[in-house]
């Protein structure tokens, strides 16, 4: 059981952070995306309970906030592993062999894109161009950009993420 499940839908700390965002905006609803990202930063994803709590806090309906949450790629409405691997599948990386690498990655982790390893260590997701096309193929693990990825480097790359 993860820590997030033990704490309420919105922790005091999260509320403080969200309120701070709101204080810089013309209205509370404008903090919708920030608030979702703040909660995700703390918990890895945004649960239904947190979603309602955020909606309440910023004065928006849950349906409308879920409309926002489900629009954006970086907001996870389902639990993810301890680390999220986002592998670029856009054209520059494609040209540099990303499709083959993607297969290697799936084989290495034993999961498909969109899945989480059974030990909850990694979630593997595709992502669009990471803006480092001169170092293709690229991927991002959590907040780290990893350039010039090749199949033989994967073990060494993953080491850091336990």
């Amino acid at each position, binding site marked *: 059981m993860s820590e997030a499940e033990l704490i309420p839908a919105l922790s005091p700390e999260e509320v403080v952070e969200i309120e701070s965002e709101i204080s810089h905006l013309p209205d509370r609803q*404008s903090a919708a995306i920030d608030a979702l990202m703040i909660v995700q930063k703390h918990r890895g994803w945004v649960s239904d309970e947190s979603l309602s709590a955020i909606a309440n806090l910023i004065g928006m309906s849950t349906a409308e906030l879920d409309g926002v949450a489900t*629009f954006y*790629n970086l907001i996870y409405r389902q639990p993810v592993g301890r680390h999220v691997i986002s592998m670029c599948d*856009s054209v520059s990386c494609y*040209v540099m062999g990303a499709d083959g690498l993607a297969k290697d990655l799936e084989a290495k982790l034993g999961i498909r894109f969109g899945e989480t390893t059974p030990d909850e260590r990694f979630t593997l997701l595709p992502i669009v161009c990471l*803006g480092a096309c*001169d170092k293709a193929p690229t991927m991002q693990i959590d907040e780290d950009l990893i350039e010039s990825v090749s199949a033989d480097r994967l073990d060494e790359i993953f080491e850091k993420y336990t």
Partner: protein
Amino acid sequence: MSSLDTKPLTGRVEEVGGPVFLADYEASGGYVAARKAITQMTPSEVIDEVKDSNLRGRGGAGFPTGTKWGFVPPGPSPDGGVKYLVCNGDEMEPGTFKDRWLISNNPHSLIEGMLIGAYAIGATKAYVFLRGEYFEPKAKLAKAIDEAKAAGYLGDGLFGSDFDLDLRIHSSGGRYICGEETALLNALEGKRAQPRNKPPFPPASGAWGRPTIVNNVETYCNVPSIIEKGADWYRDLGLTEDAGTKIYGVSGRVNQPGLWELPIGTTIREIIDEHAGGMQDGYHLRGLLPGGASTDFLVEEHFDLAMDYGTIQAAGSRMGTGTMILMDDSICPVDMSRNLQHFFAQESCGFCTPCREGLPWIESLLLDIEEGRGQPGDLEILDQNAQYIGAPGNTFCLHATGAIEPLQSALKYFRDDFERHIVEGKCPYRTNGNA
């Protein structure tokens, strides 16, 4: 001659040999331009200078920056409301990697450019709309903003004037469409990032219904040197009728992929051969997307053209972001098109029909063709869809228009490849390793 005279965007970074923070920035004349603008020039003089410089937006569309600024109603709003200045740092156009570099390496030039822009239009609130995945650039920009605040370059009563500016970073929730400036404004307001209709144009009614200017990172980075050294100097930097320098980039099978600040109008061949070190051994260049995924393919016959707005447009494409993606002879044009259309279909906001439903159909047809299931007539369906989806105005925003550019040009230049797939019932490139 300092490298700043020929490389206003990257010169400092070259000299410092890494990211430029406040001390280095100030040491090389940083914030002199902002001081000059705010203490010695009127807002309209600033706008005129930028107009004279012929600076055009570096976000892809190439709209003249000064002209855009001039659309904002001058002076304080009659109702006392704020105006906003926004930097578009969303950079999700595949193959584009210049804004990440600029923000990470030269954040103060962005801040200074925005400061001048804000002064010019009378904005007191500014946002950098940054890609959510740009953690490192965000940290560096945040550091630079803190430095600038501490040094009195951001905040209230700047340079002893009564001009205030509050500048904040907004991290995106991640969607390519957020880069479209009106969708960006919806995202900034915490909404679903569907594009808005124009009119109203953002300078009349933008963020939170207020007058708003949106410009690209690179666009703003050009502004300080224009104010400091003048429009004439800036215009003269360009080799052709366009002004200034441009950050060009190359990705693909070249020896040294990367970015270079060069006079605008440098030829494609020079960029690839001299700066990117030419093609890797064993690879031959067949075509390229000159300025990101949403630009039309150019082929051999175009490689000696100057990379500027007009020339590339005349060749049937767009300079776009100026970062080119090379297609070498190992790449199957059908499969590359499929990759591109996958991106555009997936990033469609879902608002208008042709984009939402048309692009996935195109993607699925391309996959069929690539995997040997193509049927006679498929190319006609592709042509027809390209024609109907691609014409500006047929879709709600330019996302779908951009999606069709590489497709229609691929269908034109690489039609044989498409036909062979259908006739042979397989991809002739599959044996080449890149499948």
